[in-house]
């Protein structure tokens, strides 16, 4: 499989995930909720894994959450990231329950770990797309 060598790779968005990506362009973190059992679901589902209902609605998350787990890339696997290592990517558990992935950005004097509070933010990638990332709550960004 060949990928472009310049710029970040943007995923081929499948239909069911379109609202999440549209939300991101408007600086919203969208999650889903089952209209039958009210379970909050991570994007993007077609059926509730709790009760099997396909009546799911999109809604906006507060964007607040905590680090569920994270990794630090010390090696670049794509030219776009060559000058960005080391960079941190986390699974963030939003306060509603679903988890989403995003970079964690922090300043030199900030430390973080599993359980650290974070809040959603957005930045423009490749001068066109808005990408979700997270900053440590109360912290200053680089």
């Amino acid at each position, binding site marked *: 499989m060949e990928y472009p060598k310049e710029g970040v790779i943007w995923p081929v968005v*499948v239909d069911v995930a379109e609202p999440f990506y549209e939300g991101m362009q408007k600086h919203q973190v969208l999650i889903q909720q089952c209209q039958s059992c009210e379970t909050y679901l991570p994007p993007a589902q077609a059926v509730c894994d709790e009760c099997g209902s396909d009546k799911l609605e999109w809604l906006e998350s507060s964007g607040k959450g905590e680090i569920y787990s994270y*990794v630090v890339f010390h090696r*670049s*696997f794509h030219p776009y990231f060559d000058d960005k290592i080391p960079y941190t990517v986390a*699974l963030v558990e939003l306060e509603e329950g679903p988890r989403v992935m995003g970079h964690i950005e922090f300043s030199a004097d900030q430390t973080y770990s599993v359980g650290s509070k974070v809040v959603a933010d957005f930045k423009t990638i490749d001068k066109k797309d808005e990408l979700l990332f997270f900053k440590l709550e109360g912290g200053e960004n680089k």
Partner: protein
Amino acid sequence: MTELRRDYTVASWQLAVESIGLAIEDAGLKHQDIDGLLINKSPIEDLSAMPMDLQDYAGLRNLSLLNVVEAEGSSMIQTLQQATMAIQSGMAKKVVCVFADTPLQPGSSAAESFAIAMPMMGKLGIEIANGFYSAIAAYAMAAQRYLSVYDRTTDDLALVAMANREWAMLNPLAKIKKPMTMEDHHASPWLVEPLRMLDCAYPVNGSIAVVVSDVEYADNHPDQAAYIYGMGQGHKGNTNRRGYQPEIETGAKNAAATAYKMAGITVDDIDACEFYDAFTISTLVNLEMYGFCEKGTAGKFIAEKGIGPGGQLPINTGGGHTSGYYMQGATAVSEAVMQLRNKAGERQLTKLDNMLVTGYGGRMQYHAALIMGQ
């Protein structure tokens, strides 16, 4: 098994033709005796690398069972399971299960093959825009969760890598045999923290095939066979929300329950394990999910009981993926078969009533297990 190489020679299907021939000969059979072919294609390769017409290349014209089995890293175990079910149901009697892969391509490193060709995408696909490339990243995410939740250090991972290395030093087929200390692990560079170079599989090009036969043939064959007593699968998915930890509470538990029950044993009856261990974290999680110890205690289990040569629970007795060779699910199968047929040389185990042989795929969400014995 073909030669396992660190350079590219020929395509996967060509390697597969060779290993299929070797396995048929080793089983004392002829090509026309083979009535089943189950193909385990590497997830990083196109279907053309291991096509259905591998049948024709391999000269197998009497098949009543043919399939390309796709369940990522659990595929090889699943081929043996499907072969067993087909034989028990009367659909076939002599089934070849084959894996081949060529991650080392002309002009590109194995790391590139596994990284760029396989970004770990979930349903949302957002991983790719975050630069969340390579299987290493997904396993590093699991490792960080594990270490944080259970308050453990990467020294637990080191214990797995060190035991593998000790076994590799006894295995002529193993690729890395330099002695490894805890200090060596500490000094190993981070790739995707908390996983270091020494926590990762060592890729090779090659092919491994086995013949699964009816019990009557195995019983009456002069050369010793390995037997399958039980099998199971567990696929719990990636439920990515509060209350679920798919990274460290895996479907291996379900695979274990089915396999142990079918074999009529408990975890206490297992003498040795061959795990899929592309990254060291998975051996810790497997030890817990297959029932050998409580969650978060695998490191203590390894330190106290030992999983290396002379240990109470030998694991990955050929050096596993990290020091032996990375032939995906076929690594565990090949080492298990060598042990069970008493062909493991210096590393030969003496008590092998029940061996647990497993594979997992994806982000550890696909699991398949066999209970095997002599």
